[in-house]
């Protein structure tokens, strides 16, 4: 009961700062909208400029250019202009030169070589172009070889839900929402506890007739309620504005969000225990939140990380949190199936709480 009383008291204090509450949602929403606009243009590789020098002007070159136009921003230019776009202005990662007589040779079953002028510094765009060229090459080869055998055909079946494709938003919205929740929790727990010391509140509380666990637990519970609401509202915003899937079970989603924020709140208390002043809270909080978000797959998928970092990532709270959220909203997994992740998160929270309780000498600084 004392823990609940502390929680309610802290919740009342938090709710007094209306602007702070609004900022908890507005700031992440602004960031999510910027990220969504930047990553969900819908153009994909179509925004990549691909100059083509058509020295053939025949039907094969025309057919190839038509095929490339479906995937890339193709521009027919002279050889000089192509070299300038790739080498001087770096507007294009590569340019293709289709040689004279390409169509004649193709129809006469004779091989031709097309030149690809590249700027390897634009490696990501270059990779996309090479994938498109590989597809075009495969289609052309099958035209020339009518007996080519399709020994392996891939047919896709989604066995983790009812959607076959997802956009980058499915990564970015939960990822950035979790990152902001973690950041908010680390700052709010650290700063709130330090402010209580400055105002002498902690000194008074330390002599109150209640156990430290109830005291710290009550304070963290208040932050937990706010954090859970923040996470759920951000996901719901993503659902209504960007069509983010939330899974089939609202109960599962709420429970997973509760477990995720509970573990993060307790973890924030451990970070707060190491922060001795308000000035330390900002750099330490930022560093912890960004490192955990980067390694935990909140900014980008885990496969983007080197193997060694993926091994480290598998031990982090953010990795388990993201995995649990994605399992429920994208893969429609039930609570039973995500129970392992939930247990790990709860264990993470409990251990963090015990460490925080041990490290956080409530009121000591006030006494000293």
């Amino acid at each position, binding site marked *: 009961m004392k823990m609940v009383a502390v929680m309610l008291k802290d919740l009342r204090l938090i709710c007094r700062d209306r602007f702070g509450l609004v900022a908890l949602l507005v700031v992440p929403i602004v960031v999510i909208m910027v990220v969504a606009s930047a990553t969900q243009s819908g153009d994909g590789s179509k925004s990549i400029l691909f100059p083509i020098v058509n020295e053939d002007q025949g039907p*094969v070159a*025309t057919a190839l250019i038509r095929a490339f136009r479906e995937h890339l921003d193709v521009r027919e230019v002279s050889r000089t202009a192509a070299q300038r776009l790739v080498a001087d202005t770096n507007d294009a990662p590569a340019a293709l030169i289709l040689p004279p007589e390409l169509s*004649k040779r193709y*129809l006469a079953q004779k091989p031709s070589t097309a030149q690809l002028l590249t700027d390897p510094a634009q490696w990501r765009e270059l990779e996309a172009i090479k994938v498109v060229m590989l597809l075009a090459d495969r289609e052309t080869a099958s035209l020339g070889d*009518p007996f080519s055998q*399709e020994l392996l055909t891939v047919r896709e079946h989604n066995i983790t839900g009812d959607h076959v494709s997802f956009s980058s938003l499915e990564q970015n919205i939960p990822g950035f929402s979790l990152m902001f929740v973690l950041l908010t929790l680390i700052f709010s727990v650290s700063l709130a506890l330090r402010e209580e010391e400055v105002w002498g509140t902690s000194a008074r509380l330390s002599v109150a007739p209640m156990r430290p666990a109830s005291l710290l637990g009550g304070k963290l519970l208040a932050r937990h309620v706010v954090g859970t609401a923040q996470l759920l509202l951000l996901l719901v915003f993503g659902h209504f504005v960007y069509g983010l899937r939330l899974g089939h079970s609202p109960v599962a989603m709420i429970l997973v969000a509760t477990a995720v924020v509970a573990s993060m709140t307790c973890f924030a208390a451990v970070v707060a225990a190491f922060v001795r002043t308000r000035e330390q809270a900002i750099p330490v909080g930022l560093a912890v939140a960004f490192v955990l978000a980067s390694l935990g797959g909140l900014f980008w998928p885990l496969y983007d990380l080197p193997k060694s970092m993926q091994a480290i990532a598998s031990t982090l709270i953010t990795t388990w949190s993201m995995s649990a959220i994605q399992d429920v909203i994208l893969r429609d997994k039930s609570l039973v199936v995500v129970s392992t992740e939930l247990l790990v998160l709860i264990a993470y929270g409990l251990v963090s709480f015990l460490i925080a309780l041990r490290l956080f000498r409530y009121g000591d600084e006030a006494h000293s």
Partner: protein
Amino acid sequence: MRALSIVLVVWLLVVAPAQAASPLDYTRTILDQAHTIVASSQAHNEKLAALSALFSKFLDTDAMGRQALGAHWSSLTPEQQKEFLGLFRELLQRTYVQKLLLFENPNFVYAGVQQTGADAVVDTKIVTPRDQFDVTYRLQPAGDTWLATAITVEDVSLTANLGSQLNDLLSRMSVDDLLTLMRRKYGNVGGAAQS
């Protein structure tokens, strides 16, 4: 009126076949229809189907199939021969039609015709703004029309080219395996190949 109808029918049955088109005219008629299909706004697959239907009455795929198999032809059982010819019809039509579809708006030019006995060789060109591509048809009379028994594109014979691929395959696999491969690639189209 009734008498006029009878005269018209008799004319169609008796006189019209006697006025059989020349090999050049018949080739021109077929290629003009092909041009209309290729230049139309139909989807690629619709064009493919329309062209296949058009060339089914112009290409003597049975003769080409026998020619492509060469010495192997006699080693096939009658059932295998029948199935092979059905599948080869699909293969050849697609190979030829896909080449034709590379041209967005093919401009056919008729360079001339050489008559050698009953056969005729019609030289055509597909002219593009930058280039021209030679396509030669060897035709044989078939009633009041003509059937193409060989097509050469840029001096490469379609039949010889497919024949060399078939030869290569038959040096590595049995006739049954070849038919299975062809059935997998061409057997589902129209169902004719299975008959």
